[in-house]
């Protein structure tokens, strides 16, 4: 692409933490969801893992909190071009849930679904090995509803639409099944470092 006449952009220092095409949103945390923010109390929240597992199971708020807590501190990247550095989330590693349900060896992908009906697909290896969380705290406080509270999925190494808000469950599959935005033209995996924004990228 050619240079845009007269465009310099803001003064900037190269930042190795910023994936290509992203900008630092600073203290802003834009909200991007296509649905009405649900009115979901912790007491009504449940989280289920099923599909290709030995032992399907549903956790309620109290049961999920009995699992060992785990925090994420690092960066997040949204496909709409903002990134946010040094954010802190508290919750439980998905590994702790998988230890209980025991995935079959045939499981290769998951579909994450929310209490609003939103879905997104992920390779299983993107949500295991300490790379994904169920998060209910942001910066030491309960996760706000508009950001997915009481609890959301957190997969910080992928674009944030993969981190389904108001997470309700994961279904393990032996194949890939495009979720909501993926059916709407977004990339199947969404790796920010490879700029996998739209299908075909």
């Amino acid at each position, binding site marked *: 692409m050619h240079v845009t006449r*007269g465009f310099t*952009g803001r003064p900037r220092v190269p930042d190795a933490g910023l994936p290509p095409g992203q900008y630092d949103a600073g203290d802003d945390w834009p*909200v991007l969801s296509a649905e009405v923010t649900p009115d979901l109390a912790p007491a009504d929240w*449940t989280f289920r893992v099923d599909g290709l597992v030995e032992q399907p199971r549903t956790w309620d708020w109290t049961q999920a909190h009995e699992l060992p807590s785990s925090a994420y501190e690092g960066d997040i990247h949204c496909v709409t*071009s903002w990134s946010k550095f040094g954010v802190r989330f508290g919750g439980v590693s998905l590994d702790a849930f998988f230890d209980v349900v025991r995935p079959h060896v045939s499981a290769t992908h998951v579909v994450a679904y929310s209490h609003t009906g939103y879905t997104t697909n992920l390779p299983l290896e993107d949500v295991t090995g300490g790379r994904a969380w169920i998060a209910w705290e942001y910066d030491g406080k309960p996760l706000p509803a508009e950001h997915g509270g009481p609890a959301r999925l957190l997969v910080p190494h992928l674009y944030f639409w993969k981190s389904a808000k108001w997470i309700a469950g994961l279904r393990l599959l032996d194949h890939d099944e495009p979720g909501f935005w993926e059916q709407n*033209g977004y990339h199947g995996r969404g790796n920010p470092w490879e700029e996998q924004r739209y299908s075909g990228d």
Partner: protein
Amino acid sequence: MTDTFAPATRFAVPGRIAVSNRAAAVWQTATLTEIRRETPHASTFRFVVPDWAGHLPGQHLMLRLRAEDGYVAQRHYSIASHPDDAGHVELTLDHVEGGEVSGWFHTVARPGDEVEVRGPLSGFFAWPGDRPALLLGAGSGVVPLMSMLRQHRARGLSVPLRLVVSARSPEELIYTREYGAETTAVFTRSAPKGVPVGRMAAAHVAPLLAEQPAGGWEAYVCGSNGFAEHASRLLVEAGQPVDRIRIERFG
């Protein structure tokens, strides 16, 4: 225990249309042909995009600018023009204080300049003109809704369409000359004589939900996140089903 919990499918509605993934992936050159001032803070930018695949009202595109050192800024913009304006695309941009991309458009851009766009993107907020449309927008959130209104007019559609649009003041209302009987304007800071000042309220929404067209309204809400939260709550409280509310948040 809800051990048989299955996801509610109420929001798992498909997009209104299937998007062309090829069109979404390819960057195209868009040449600026015209700039029209809408309000002191918003202008419309008209482009020629020769290979534009066509869009539906409500869709947006991604636009990028490149600096000499290779730095690239990209942002999403809703498409303001209607699809029958073949080979052309219009965007309406607010001049955001200190904004990198909108700042360039409002202070540097002139006809003949070239930028790059890809799209159209997302079928979710699209309106094919089939169902009755109840449109709520604020500020530049009216942009994709205007594309719907323009299409409705251009094609002489008979399916009901209503627009409730919120702006700070009459001077800041975008597209003010184009509204007709289908539109109610709400002013939050200052209003013409005799028009009350205040936020969009149940009183604006309830009468429209009371006059339900056959098949019910498909509601489209667009604006800042604060507005989207407020307006979608008004709709839910007035009885609009959540699975018939589509929201586009500008952040």
